[in-house]
């Protein structure tokens, strides 16, 4: 089979030839293409191929319609359902997307909330241990400016935690070597001393700042040096009374929030339920219209 000439033409030449065939070129374009046709056999062959193709298409027979298409009032009424289908389909898709989006926000929010809780808990735990060993000089450096306390405590926590670990290792080594514990066993610690650190533990980082700012509490803060010295909390208590109340208040608030969230349905859950119901209704209507329209 010979290769077709129309394939060899550029798009521009193909369009020119096709339009020339139908007499749709202006005078100048017609003169140009005719001049080229005289000297380019490839163009002449391609023109002939296009002419034959158009002739074949025009030779296609006409067909008689299978029926008449006169309209009735019933046809005009039922016509609306055809356009209801794409509209319902679009609405269903949008509502389904909104539903997925809300679910995503809910899940992401819950995951983020639990992460924040874990981070807060860790920070607080880290802050508690060194706070009992820190001295005022170190603390003064740590709290150079108000508002930076959390960051400074966090930075100070690492070396202090290391020193605490070292102290523990020394104790452990002494114990291994038959030397007596510097720290009494738990059973020997008086009940008061056992309880107090636990009670004041959450307020420790704030206590440091208050003491430094106050200045007169230097001696009291120095008493913090012993890791198991429960007197810190007692001595520092007047200085941080407000803070403790604030913390307690905050804790109460959290408890109230927890009670609310467990006792009632959250708004986002209501939204999810609503969207799910709407989605089901729309999908059902879409399917109904689709089935009934054909």
């Amino acid at each position, binding site marked *: 089979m010979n290769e077709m000439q129309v394939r060899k033409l550029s798009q521009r030449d193909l369009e020119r030839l096709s*339009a020339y065939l139908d007499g749709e070129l202006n005078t100048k374009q017609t003169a140009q293409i005719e001049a080229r046709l005289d000297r380019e056999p490839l163009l002449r062959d391609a023109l002939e191929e296009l002419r034959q193709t158009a002739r074949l298409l025009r030779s296609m027979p006409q067909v008689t319609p299978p029926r008449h298409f006169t309209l009735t009032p019933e046809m005009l009424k039922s016509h609306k359902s055809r356009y209801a289908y794409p509209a319902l389909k679009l609405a269903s898709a949008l509502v389904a997307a909104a539903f997925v989006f809300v679910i995503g926000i809910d899940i992401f929010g819950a995951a983020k909330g639990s992460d924040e809780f874990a981070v807060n808990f860790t920070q607080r735990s880290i802050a508690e241990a060194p706070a009992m060993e820190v001295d005022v000089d170190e603390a003064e450096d740590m709290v150079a400016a108000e508002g930076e306390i959390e960051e400074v405590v966090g930075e100070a926590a690492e070396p202090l935690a290391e020193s605490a670990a070292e102290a523990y290792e020394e104790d452990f080594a002494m114990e291994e070597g038959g030397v007596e514990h510097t720290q009494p066993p738990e059973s020997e610690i008086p009940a008061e001393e056992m309880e107090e650190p636990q009670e004041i533990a959450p307020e420790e980082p704030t206590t440091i700042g208050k003491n430094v700012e106050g200045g007169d509490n230097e001696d009291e803060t120095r008493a913090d040096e012993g890791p198991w010295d429960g007197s810190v909390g007692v001595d520092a208590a007047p200085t941080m009374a407000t803070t403790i109340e604030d913390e307690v208040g905050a804790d109460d608030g959290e408890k109230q929030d927890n009670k609310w969230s467990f006792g009632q349905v959250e708004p986002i859950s209501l939204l999810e339920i609503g969207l799910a119901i709407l989605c089901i209704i729309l999908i059902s209507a879409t399917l109904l219209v689709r089935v009934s329209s054909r």
Partner: protein
Amino acid sequence: MDEAELIQYAQQGDLDAFNRLIQNYEHQVFNLAWRIMGDSDSAADATQEAFISAYRAIGRFRGGSFRSWMLRIVTNSCYDEMRWRKRRPAGSLEALFDDLGMPEPENPGDLIHKPEAPEAAMERAELSRAIQDCLNRLPDDFRVVAVLVDVQGYEYQEVAQAIGKPLGTVKSRLARARARLRECLQRYRELLPSTFRLEDESS
């Protein structure tokens, strides 16, 4: 009652006047839809939809050529029908033929042609199916223009109005459609007229 009067009555909501008006276009509209859609059922649906749309829109008809106005509505209706058919799950016989790339068998009884020998009629029907198959293989936009210009014989300007595109777009689509059709028709060389084959062989 002439066309202008029928249009006027139809614009006032007279359904009978509208039905009399479209009787003159029924054949033309269905044939156009048949060649664009490629099967009788789709063409009938597109034709019916076109007339319903025309009835709803005739209040906005502001004179000029009713044929051109109708042509635009039919073309849009065919595009709507093509979109609708693409969404429809396959299962019908027509869809099966489409999937296999086979043309729908034409009922020779539906064809309007001069009395001829049975063998010639059969060849003619086969050639028509071959051309329709090649038309069906074209992209929708190319097929619509090829049918409007080459099969139905409309002018470029009228086609540009019907599809709502510039004249240059019509020229471009038509040229590319013709080139593709030429290529496709080589599959049916044995069905093509002798002049078509001979000239091709000599080139």
